[in-house]
């Protein structure tokens, strides 16, 4: 019985490690022109990387892939009010993320954030959804600067948010994937007033 329990815990542990590894393929390190470093997610369409507005200050940023390759990303859209930015890259250069439905999250659901906190590459943090999902997700998870713009995935590995704010000890916020969808479709323009193409 003890062995059975240990085997289940070990299986859960292995599964989390696999999830972290797989998600990391779609997470990039974003270096802005002012030396800022954050994270970005290769979104579910060719040549598109999503990150936080506050991670990229200039018109372009250097993106470093999980395998160490570097490519240049051009900022094609920004919404400072949503803290989102979209970058375009020349090629479809790495596995794209699968995007999930943030509205389907329930309080208590497991989430995993993968980003580049404090210069560490692709560091996972485990947490749960701590409040009802909205345009912004409230999370019980320990994040640090550099997680911004990275991937927040559900237990199935689908990206459901972009972490953007540490809200306290063990608390953080993420932009919900539904907000990213609105941002990309252009519907956010009216609502936010500060969305612009560059």
């Amino acid at each position, binding site marked *: 019985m003890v062995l059975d329990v240990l085997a289940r815990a070990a*299986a*859960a542990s*292995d*599964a*989390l490690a*696999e*999830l972290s590894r*797989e*998600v990391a*393929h*779609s997470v990039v390190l974003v270096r802005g022109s002012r030396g800022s470093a954050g994270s970005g997610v290769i979104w*579910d369409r060719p040549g598109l990387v999503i990150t936080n507005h506050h991670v990229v200050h200039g018109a372009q940023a*250097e993106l470093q892939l999980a395998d160490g*390759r*570097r*490519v*240049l990303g051009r900022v094609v859209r920004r919404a400072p009010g949503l803290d989102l930015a979209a970058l375009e890259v*020349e*090629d*479809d*250069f*790495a*596995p*794209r*993320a*699968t995007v999930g439905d943030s509205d389907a999250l*329930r*309080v*208590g*659901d*497991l989430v995993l954030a993968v980003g580049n906190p404090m210069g560490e590459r692709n560091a996972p943090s485990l*947490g*749960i*959804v*701590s*409040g*009802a999902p909205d345009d912004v997700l*409230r999370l*019980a998870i320990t994040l640090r600067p550099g997680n911004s713009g990275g991937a927040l995935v*559900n*237990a*199935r*590995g689908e990206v459901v948010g972009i972490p953007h704010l540490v809200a*306290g*000890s*063990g*608390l953080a916020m993420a932009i919900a994937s539904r907000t990213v969808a609105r941002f990309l479709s252009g519907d956010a323009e009216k609502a936010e007033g500060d969305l612009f193409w560059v």
Partner: protein
Amino acid sequence: MLRPPVQAYTSCMTLSASTSGLLAGLSDELAGAVQRAARSVVAVNGRRRFPGSGIAWQPELVVTAAHVLERDNDLSISTPEGEQREARLVGGDRGSDFAVLAIDGGSLAPIERAATPLPAGHLVLAVGRPGTPAPIASFGVISSAGGAWRTAQGAVLDAYLRADVALLPGLSGGALIDVQGRALGLLSSQLAGGDPVAIPVSTVDGLVQRILSGRSLRRAYLGVSTQPVELQDTLRQRLGLQQPSGLMLLGMEPGAPADRAGLLLGDIVLAIGGRAIEDGEALQMALGPDAVGKPTPVRLIRGGHVLEVSVTPAERPS
């Protein structure tokens, strides 16, 4: 130097079926546990800031953290269904950060309690409802579970649970639950100086019983000031004592229980109610609410001899 991409990808991220199934199952169970417990977790409206949380303990009773109540009147709860109900403060104790509310109309769904306490290492969730339609939750593991302790406010409780759950605003008064949604304890952000701690359900039951039967949670009181003193070897040998130290009485409040029982300045207290007293902490632990009004033998050294005096502790004056 930027290099051109060397490989084009068309696929999306892939997870093995076993990983996806296992983690999705775990996620479902955690969310399910929150949902089950949340049917019995209410919002408690008793302060100017956002509400705190409370647990439906009986169909007409809610337990909560006393510090989320800033007033004694004009209290209400919001049920999980969103209904607002008047609440009346039945009793409570700031030192234990504990209060019981009687709910107008009753018919709340009492929370299911875990049958046995969980030891350190177990996965747990913290569930609250600070006035939001949906519950809030954080998770972690039990860090420690233990017996009698003194809270940061000076009360003595007979057990505690500590967990590394994040303290979301408004979580106080909510439930620490196991992964099946059963209550393990009542959460407080205040009892341990800002760290999350929970009063275990069996202790909560005891506190509820005490309040419902009209007994106070206020601690017992002797009216003395003390200083721990070492007992020299020759004295211990002569009197046949094991303990290395006792508590010398240095101050005595006139008319207080110790004075009335005939205790004298300079007496060295060795035991109260059969419990060895080696320092001030032990004295505090011996003076829980149960000691109030109960004649209690105090063993002490006076003039080089051991004697026993009966003292009846009173309720601590506020």
